[in-house]
């Protein structure tokens, strides 16, 4: 018989420590939907998504029952729309976004990602048109997520695209001003975007992917925090081992769920994303792991070191637990979605500068950070450029998801509800990067020898 303590440990992880599978995301290629007629393009997109993912939600629920583990989100990611949209009109791109929303409604999924463009080296006409309508598309839909890859280590940084994104973020905030500028929570700017990411808002189905694929993102900050708490006063070497073992167990659940979903849906297994994804719920926070490791508050000096160790240990444990790893893989630090991060920002322990430093050693980047509504476009672009250059120089994925909450100032809060949580408005450096940003052009790709 299975060891009794193992059974109780698993049940405790699920019931008390919020272990869950954060998402099953089905990637669907839309290349065969290409058409020179807008209506036909939309019809083909709708038909393909609703046919391929027809049983996604139902299957997710069945697996949830079978293994007794919550699967919080069922999502779909598609080929970046700017690539298949081509030269359709800007209004046509909005119609495609609405088509994605309609497909998501039919399927009953939580989000659909892929209203995206890849412009790290330059912009096609299609990409320009898509970017120009992102604010409207995200305002007129609820479940559609958008991402734009503006840089890569090989191509450098497209500063013209960053300038457009600063404008898009400000406009998206304005258009959804009556709803806490929520459109910005569905828009992410990337460097080195992964093509198999199951997490929103950055999920899209990359060009080197199969026709369809099942990608799974696991979660379990609460499990890691509890394990560290139980370990008491031990050395960091012992702690690293403990985190590895815990990450192994968490990831094995993801692998099991992914294989089962792949079999039941007859869709190839893509990847497991080795993630520690927090939620605003008590006991589901990455910041609390760092505090459990010995920091008085997340944001204190030592936070970057603690996070680097945590992130590395999670990957080491997770890699062995899964047959194929990809996506964003690492600890997430979205401010509004993490109770400990929210507290740390509110009490002044965690600043945007420290968050930026933290993103150099963990997954993703400046995520779900609410900034004052009157923040200038150039400042937003400056924040994006800084974060993106960390990714480009370090050959890693970084991303920016900022919410310049309309009408809000430092000291106010914005509440997005649900998994998106709430965020205190963070203070920014008030000096202007406007002249630097207005130069436009391209920051060349970094050299990868002579490392210092």
């Amino acid at each position, binding site marked *: 018989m299975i060891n*009794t303590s193992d*059974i109780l*440990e*698993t049940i405790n992880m699920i019931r008390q420590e919020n272990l869950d599978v954060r998402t099953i995301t089905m990637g669907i290629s839309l290349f065969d939907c290409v058409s020179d007629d807008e209506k036909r393009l939309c019809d083909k997109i709708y038909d393909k998504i609703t046919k391929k993912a027809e049983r996604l939600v139902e299957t997710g629920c069945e697996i949830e*029952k079978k*293994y*007794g583990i919550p699967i919080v989100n069922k999502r779909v990611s598609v080929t970046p729309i700017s690539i298949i949209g081509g030269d359709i009109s800007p209004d046509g791109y909005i119609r495609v976004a609405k088509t994605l929303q309609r497909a998501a409604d039919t399927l009953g999924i939580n989000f659909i990602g892929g209203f995206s463009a890849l412009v790290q080296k330059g912009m096609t006409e299609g990409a320009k048109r898509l970017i120009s309508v992102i604010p409207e598309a995200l305002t007129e839909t609820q479940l559609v997520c958008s991402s734009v890859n503006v840089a890569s280590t090989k191509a450098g940084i497209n500063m013209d695209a960053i300038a457009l994104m600063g404008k898009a973020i400000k406009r998206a905030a304005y258009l959804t001003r009556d709803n806490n500028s929520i459109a910005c929570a569905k828009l992410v700017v990337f460097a080195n975007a992964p093509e198999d990411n199951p997490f929103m808002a950055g999920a899209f189905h990359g060009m080197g992917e199969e026709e369809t694929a099942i990608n799974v993102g696991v979660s379990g900050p609460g499990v890691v925090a509890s394990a560290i708490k139980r370990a008491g006063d031990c050395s960091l070497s012992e702690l690293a081992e403990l985190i590895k073992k815990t990450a192994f*167990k968490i990831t094995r*659940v993801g692998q099991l769920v992914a294989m089962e979903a792949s079999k039941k849906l007859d869709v190839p297994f893509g990847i497991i994303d080795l993630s520690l994804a927090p939620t605003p719920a008590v006991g589901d926070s990455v910041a609390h792991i760092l505090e459990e490791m010995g920091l008085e508050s997340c944001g204190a000096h030592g936070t970057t070191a603690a996070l680097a160790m945590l992130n590395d240990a999670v990957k080491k444990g997770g890699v062995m637990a899964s047959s194929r790893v990809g996506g964003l893989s690492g600890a997430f630090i979205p401010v509004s979605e993490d109770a400990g991060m929210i507290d740390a920002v509110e009490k002044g322990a965690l600043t945007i500068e420290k968050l930026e430093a933290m993103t150099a050693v963990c997954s993703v980047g400046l995520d779900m950070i609410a900034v004052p509504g009157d923040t200038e476009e150039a400042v937003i672009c400056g924040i994006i450029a800084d974060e993106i250059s960390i990714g480009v120089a370090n050959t890693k994925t970084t991303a920016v998801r900022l919410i310049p909450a309309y009408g809000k100032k430092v000291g106010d809060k914005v509440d997005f509800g649900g998994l998106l949580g709430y965020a205190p408005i963070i203070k920014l450096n008030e000096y202007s990067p406007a002249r630097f940003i207005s130069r436009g052009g391209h920051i060349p790709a970094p050299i990868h020898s002579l490392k210092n």
Partner: protein
Amino acid sequence: MKAVITVTGKDSVGIIAAVSAECAECAVNIVDITQTVLSDYFVMIMLVNIDELKMSFGEFSDKLDLLGKEKGLDIHTMHEDIFNSMHKI
């Protein structure tokens, strides 16, 4: 194929009988039981064979869940694969 049923809650007469009866009705064979009472708190782990299960696993799990609610117990039914995956290399 096997499943693990865990039952926890305040101790009372007939808990094992009730869970066993439900299993028998669904053609689920009990393979092993570990059970203890810790200061009035009943804890049981049951390993069952579900090869002959008359319904879908989800329906069986719902039935036991309902039984738990009626009796004021916490009953979870999970496929054994999740434990094997997590705890065995």
